[in-house]
């Protein structure tokens, strides 16, 4: 269909008109700020906040423990915190996965209105305020909290149980907050799973375990991987959960970033930390993206 010149130029005008607002918004308030952050991460922190416009790679050096200046000694404290963050994020992924995977099959096995209701119930906490959800675990885990009181009253423990301010409490909180992110992609995959493949596998003599391992897991892998990526990233950068459930005992990279901006006012260092997290995001998503486009290239039936 050949378009006349007038139509083409009118289309072009409409297109520009429609795209302009978001393009400007994202350009000015998203891309430029991210760019400035990159620049800041290479600048010297000012004495009273702000920056000095000097080339200063030590923000990154400090991160992996290089002595910063003449008066600082090798101290990989930030590296340790970062590794601990990685560990917590990975444990969170594992926890959400273990919880969500069987649950997805449970929901998928239902039918009709019951299924809609359960799906609704599973999706709803996703919209609950994150703070409120974390707060609930404060009530559950603290020494005078629900769990401890319950266990004491049953006589299982004598001393109040302090579960707070440990890696465990942080992971529990993260798992609770992030479970919907894992559940939904897995569920989408499980729901699509062609049950006749499971039956075919059984028909060909495979046991349940063999079927799970050789057929179900590989076929639901996209959901597992997708869910893992979108749980891992917010877990890695989270600072609210560790600051409330980890207290001063559990430090994550997110806490360091927060502190360097709002307390120590070392913005360049905070920016460098944020970019470290961004590096993970970029790598994970490009891996995910290339995997996806590869499987799309093969064509799916």
């Amino acid at each position, binding site marked *: 269909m050949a378009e006349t010149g007038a139509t083409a130029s009118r*289309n072009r005008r*409409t*297109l520009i008109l*429609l*795209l302009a*607002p*978001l393009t400007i*918004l*994202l350009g000015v*308030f*998203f891309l*430029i*700020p*991210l760019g*400035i*952050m990159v620049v800041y991460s290479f600048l010297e922190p000012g004495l009273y906040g702000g920056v000095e416009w000097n080339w200063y790679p030590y923000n990154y050096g400090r991160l992996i423990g290089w002595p910063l200046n003449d008066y600082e000694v090798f101290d990989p404290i930030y590296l340790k915190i970062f590794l601990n963050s990685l560990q917590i994020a990975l444990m969170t992924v594992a926890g959400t996965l273990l919880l969500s995977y*069987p*649950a997805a*099959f*449970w*929901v*998928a*096995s239902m039918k009709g209105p019951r299924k*809609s209701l*359960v799906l*609704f*119930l*599973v999706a*709803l906490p*996703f919209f*609950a*305020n994150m*703070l*409120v*959800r974390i*707060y*609930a675990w404060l*009530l*559950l885990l*603290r020494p005078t*909290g*629900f769990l401890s*009181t319950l266990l004491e009253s049953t006589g299982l423990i004598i001393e109040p149980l302090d579960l707070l301010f440990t890696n465990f409490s942080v992971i529990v909180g993260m798992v*609770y907050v992030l479970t919907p992110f894992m559940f939904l992609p897995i569920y989408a995959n499980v729901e699509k799973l062609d*049950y006749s493949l*499971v039956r075919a596998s059984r028909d060909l003599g495979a046991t*349940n375990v063999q*079927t799970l391992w050789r057929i179900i897991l590989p076929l639901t892998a996209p959901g597992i991987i997708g869910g893992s990526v979108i749980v891992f*990233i*917010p877990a890695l*950068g989270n*600072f*609210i959960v560790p600051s409330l459930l980890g207290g001063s005992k559990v430090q994550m990279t997110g806490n360091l*970033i*927060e502190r360097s*901006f709002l307390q120590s006012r070392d913005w360049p260092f905070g*920016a460098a930390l*944020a970019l470290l997290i*961004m590096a993970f*995001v970029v790598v994970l998503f490009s891996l995910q993206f290339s995997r996806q486009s590869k499987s799309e290239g093969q064509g799916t039936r």
Partner: protein
Amino acid sequence: MFERIMSSKGWWRLFQAYGLVFLIFLYLPLALIFVYSFNANPINMAVWTEFTFDWYKTIFFGAGTAGSFDAAFTESPDRIFEVVRNSAIVALSASTISTVIGTATAIAIRRYDFVGKKVYQALLVLPMIVPDIVLGIALLIFFVGAGFELSLLTVIIGHTTFLSSYVFVVVSARLAGMDMSLERASADLGAGPLTTFRRVTLPQIMPGVVGGFLLAFIISLDDVVITYFIAGVGSQTLPLFILAMMRRGLRPQINALAILLLSFTFTVAAIGLYLRSRKS
């Protein structure tokens, strides 16, 4: 369907039981807040003394209006009203603006092809991928550097930036299922572009637009991290206020406030989920 995977009844029952445990895991913590919010014990919530509505009353009327609660246990209603108002202003304006912008973008992407479309689409979803904290500090650096004073305006701008992406995704999903020949049919029947949009396109994508708006509204209302970095002294929102309360110590009034907030967001979310399920 999956009965046959569970070749024995025992496994099947275990599977069902697990499902219940999963639901309990999701709801027990929230239910706990709900129960505690009616416990009169001002010192230890885990020990039940008696049923009371007082914590809810203090939110609206302040300490002393209900029972004999010391002001130390409660925040003033004026302060609470102020942060709720801030939250409402931010959530309503950010979600309205982002709904308009996100919808316009989704329509443009669906209707036209242009050079670099793929890259452009990737850019559009980027704000959803970037961790909150990174977005928060990037905006903080930018606002401070560009001489903006941190205020409700900066919060609205910040929210609109990433919420537009959410609306874009939701509306795009709706548009993907729409028959674009309807627009051509409308034009063929003599309707101008605006009439076509108002009478053909918009009614078709309305569920997506409303869904996008509700989602944006809830995310904005609930946001802690980004707001945490770009809110100024006078622009504290409700979540930030609750965070501050929690950091000062756990007091029963938080329970009541949390339950009120939950009831509100759950209602909005339930409407959104209902609309979506009805349409598909």
